[in-house]
């Protein structure tokens, strides 16, 4: 295995709406490229992969120069050894699953090629599909084949453009697991584009935030999202409740896990994140995502129903903020004035808080 290579990107390219002007370096790590749609994330990947050329700039991968406007280097796509996976698996429809996977290895001797394809199919649990055509397998299977086809070539850099956004959650976490295992094993830098903040939290320790073609923030998710430098990001990151917690149990089949709020007995069910049992995590929850009830609700899909006492009622512009103490944990809850009047809530009153599993997000610390 060759030594892990660092990626250096510095590119300038006028686009229709704005100027793509971005510069960053990554080591052999997973980096999330985060931003609203139309921020230029995909254009950055296209420049790195070689599908389009920046007007000026330089892109290096380890010792290799992929692009340099100064020295006039522009390596063709096929020589860059950059794996690219987008939301569309783009499998070759006229080739079988096996032929798709071995496509990048056609220059290898038969025996070696077969061995590598076999082990990759084993790894992704698609060996039974080997002779199927892409049209005959499910979307999740197609994406697994596409991932196997990319990884079997052992790229020196992996570019992922919202590759799993079309898949359901449990399938997604399973694939992410495989992907991260591979990344750790090979130590290859990985750029993962998403516009989903929850994904950004669970994927990586480093997030590059892009807005209108520029990288406007670079750091850990918590730091990047909780220190909003612009109005746009403040809207993106309105989390009033942040708790330290310990992962008690993971339920991959359900796509959830159980977390205990640190120093208390309070258990919360959260979406499955890239964490193992016993690991600590920071949970984030919007005050507006919590429901308040005066009686114990029954027949409800929400998995977290907690009892607590109202400590503070604070009238704010347009809404009311409650502080509710559940055991030793204080929740900030936003409700409307109408709801406050209707329920006749008073300080010191006992209430029930209702929290949907998926309104809980992770901050990576």
């Amino acid at each position, binding site marked *: 295995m060759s030594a892990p290579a660092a990626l250096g990107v510095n590119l300038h390219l006028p686009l229709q709406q704005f100027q793509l002007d971005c510069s960053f370096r990554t080591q052999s790590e997973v980096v999330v490229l985060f931003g609203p749609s139309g921020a230029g994330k995909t254009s950055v990947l296209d420049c790195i*992969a070689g599908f389009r050329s920046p007007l000026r700039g330089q892109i290096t991968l380890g010792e290799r120069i992929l692009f340099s406007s100064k020295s006039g280097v522009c390596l063709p796509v*096929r020589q860059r*050894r950059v794996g690219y996976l987008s939301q569309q698996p*783009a499998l*070759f429809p006229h080739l079988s699953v096996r032929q798709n996977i071995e496509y990048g290895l056609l220059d290898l001797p038969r025996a070696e090629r077969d061995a590598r394809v076999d082990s990759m199919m084993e790894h992704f649990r698609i060996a039974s599909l080997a002779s199927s055509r892409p*049209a005959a397998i499910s979307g999740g299977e197609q994406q697994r084949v596409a991932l196997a086809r*990319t990884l079997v*070539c052992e790229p020196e850099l992996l570019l992922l453009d919202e590759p799993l956004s079309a898949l359901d959650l449990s399938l997604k976490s399973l694939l992410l697991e495989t992907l991260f295992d591979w990344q750790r094993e090979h130590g290859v830098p990985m750029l993962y584009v998403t516009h989903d903040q929850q994904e950004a939290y669970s994927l990586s320790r480093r997030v590059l935030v892009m807005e209108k073609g520029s990288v406007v923030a670079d750091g850990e998710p918590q730091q990047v999202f909780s220190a909003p430098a612009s109005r746009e990001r403040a809207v993106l990151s309105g989390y009033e409740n942040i708790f330290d917690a310990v992962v008690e149990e993971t339920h991959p089949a359900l796509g959830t896990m159980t977390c205990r709020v640190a120093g208390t007995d309070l258990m919360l069910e959260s979406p499955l994140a890239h964490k193992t049992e016993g690991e600590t995590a920071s949970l984030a929850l919007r005050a507006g995502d919590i429901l308040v009830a005066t009686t114990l609700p029954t027949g409800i899909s929400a998995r977290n129903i907690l009892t607590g006492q109202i400590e503070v009622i604070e009238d704010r512009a347009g809404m009311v903020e409650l502080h509710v103490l559940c055991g030793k944990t204080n929740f900030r809850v936003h409700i409307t004035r109408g709801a406050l009047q209707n329920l006749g809530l008073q300080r010191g009153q006992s209430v029930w808080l209702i929290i949907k599993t998926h309104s809980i997000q992770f901050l990576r610390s």
Partner: protein
Amino acid sequence: MISPLLLSLKLALVTSTLLLGIGLPLAFWLAFTRFRLRFLVESVVALPIVLPPTVLGFYLLLELGSRGSLGAFWERFTGHTLAFSFEGLVLGSVIYSLPFAVQPFTAALASVDRRLLAASASLGASSWRTFWRITFPLALPGIVTGFALSFAHTLGEFGVVLMLGGNIPGRTQTASIAIYDNVQMLDYATAGRQSLTLLGISFALLVLINALNRKRNWRLQ
């Protein structure tokens, strides 16, 4: 002596095979170039569709005869003129049937999903490999269609052949010319037999192509 029908079939086969070699690179260029004046080239390729065959035949006759530059060049090397020869007919047919091959080729190549071509390149494949392993097989129905159309179109060619080839039995008398000849001589029975044969061959060819393409599309979906 070769019969008019066999001559027509030979001419059609040679022409559509040559058009495969000439038409595919041209169609590839038309499908993928970003050249701004591409529409001009497209217009030139499409010209034989709208041009009366006699007009095309007339210019070709001038160019391929002893006084034409290409004709004189050919005569110096081979000893006979291009006009009134099988080779001349082939050249005329290639030009006359060009759009019938190139247009389906271009449409088929252009309709191959670009994301597949991008995926092929990012998996390390050269342009050559991408073409033969991805683009060509996926465009194959259109390429087969173009081959069949140019074959059938050459089979039914009349005006260009008459202007360029004359009507030399065994050398340039194709089936369509022979039918015309027989009608002129009031031999309706022979003309009828020949017409029915041409009709049958053309129809069978189109049925075969459509059936093949349908089966293939069904398999990919």
